[in-house]
């Protein structure tokens, strides 16, 4: 599947701030979409679109903090860079605690913002790759039969074939066949790799870390 080009979203109610940010991003060749309200961003938000979000903390209607909460509720992974006014530091700290990627105080140096955007976009790519990886793993896991799942659980908990055979009430030979099928279906070339996959999947099982 071809990756879509990243877009930097800007949400700020101030026309001049929004306009200047859009022009700055354009000057460094980044695609940008600027919106005046948090609600418009939520309405247009597409989880499949790679990118990052530059968000003003204070806005009438839905504030930047509230938008971040909404995105968290939806399980959105888009990295958020908050831009804050003078004296909004406690708010910025709270935003970071809520999982914001970074924050910048207005007015800021262009390079500081661009560096943060680049890092945010890189983070987004990593997150998306991981998510894709996990969804592939999940698909593979789903293709296992109930018995194969039992074997997977026992193998990755470190049980030798002989014990497994006794636990499951089958021959050691049957265990070996199941085990080979699990390795093949999960695309694992070693026991270590299989253990790693199970750990990754367990992480996704509890997304609110």
């Amino acid at each position: 599947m071809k990756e879509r080009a990243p877009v930097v979203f800007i949400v700020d109610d101030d026309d001049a701030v929004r306009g200047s940010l859009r022009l700055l991003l354009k000057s460094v060749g980044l695609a940008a979409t600027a919106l005046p309200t948090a609600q418009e961003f939520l309405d247009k938000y597409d989880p499949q679109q790679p990118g990052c979000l530059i968000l003003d903390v204070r806005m009438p209607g839905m504030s930047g903090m509230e938008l971040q909460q909404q995105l968290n509720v939806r399980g959105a992974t888009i990295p958020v860079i908050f831009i804050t006014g003078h004296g909004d530091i406690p708010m910025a700290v709270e935003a970071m605690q809520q999982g914001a990627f970074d924050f910048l105080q207005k007015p800021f140096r262009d390079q500081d913002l661009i560096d943060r955007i680049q890092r945010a976009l890189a983070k987004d790519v990593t997150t998306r790759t991981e998510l894709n990886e996990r969804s592939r793993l999940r698909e593979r896991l789903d293709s296992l039969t109930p018995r194969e799942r039992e074997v997977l659980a026992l193998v990755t908990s470190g049980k030798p074939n002989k014990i497994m055979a006794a636990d499951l009430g089958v021959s050691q030979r049957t265990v070996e066949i199941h085990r080979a099928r699990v390795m093949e279906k999960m695309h694992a070339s070693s026991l270590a790799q299989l253990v790693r996959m199970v750990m990754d999947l367990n992480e996704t099982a509890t997304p609110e870390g």
Partner: protein
Amino acid sequence: MPTERKSSQELQALLDAAVDGIVVIDHAGSIQSFNRAAQGLFGYLSEEVVGRNVSVLMTDEDCATHDAHLARYLESRVPHIIGKGREVTARRKDGTVFPASLSVGLVTGENPPRFVGFIHDITAQRQTDTEAHRLQDRLMHVSRLATVGEMASGIAHELNQPLAAIATYAHACDRLLGIPDPEIDEVRVALKQIAEQAVRAGDIIRKLRSLAKTEESQRTAVDVNAVIEELTDLIQSDAKAHGVQYWRELAPNLPKVVLDRSQIQQVVLNLVRNALEALALGQLNTAQILITTRCNRDGDVEIAVRDTGPGVDSVLVHKIFDPFCSTKPTGTGLGLPISRTIVRTHGGALEYQPNIPAGACFIVKLPAIRTDQP
């Protein structure tokens, strides 16, 4: 005769014991009696002034009116100042003057009549009044500064917006010009924006300064709507900083009101501050402040500041205008009393009523200039 002489001595003793200056004059204004207190007040000995016209005790201005009063009374016998106290400027022997309260009585049963004047030096009282006024002005200024101070975070945020835009536009221009074959039109638009935003920042600072500066009370006939409009940016930024929506509904064609612009603006800002703080206590979903103006049935101009907060507790309603009755942890308890004093010195009234369906509503009533009178 001895009895007559005795009673005359008694009278003089009585007059001399009085605290106030007592001067008796005949119908022509000639001084007939000048008690001890009067001697102390004016610096004349009794024998220096008895027989002279009372005008020696007055400023030239008061002389003319005094003669006119006397002549008018003698002709019409209708008292104008007799029995009533009035404030005059009295002149001492050395030419210096002092403010005095004068009340005039008629010595009845004589023709032509004689008059008795009681003179009370009110210099000290005047000084106290002046001092009280000065303190009141100072208090109003301090409270205005406090209001401005409270708004500072909103203003700082508001100032940051154009500054951030200027910096970012300038950076963008720099980068755009670094590209081979740059789009000059885009750079031009950005430069124009930079200039506009600098003006915007200047406007914000000017508004703040005009609000904070000490100035002599200046009353002029103004359009109340213009007074409210001037505050829009300040209120808007403060409201925004609190996540509150600010609306205004200003009635067109209001009659003008004679007022001190900065004082009335202080009152409005104070009411808005109170509203913002009240809203911070409640649900933020519908946090709104509405300022309306209108001309009421009596022809007075009303400014109403409404909010959708919790409103004033019915237990406190009768106390909110009392000094030091603050419900806020950081409040001085002077905002509303000072506001009411300011509005009253304008001949108006500041009143509270619950807002419908919820919240508080403060109404500033100001007497309008009547157009049906010359």
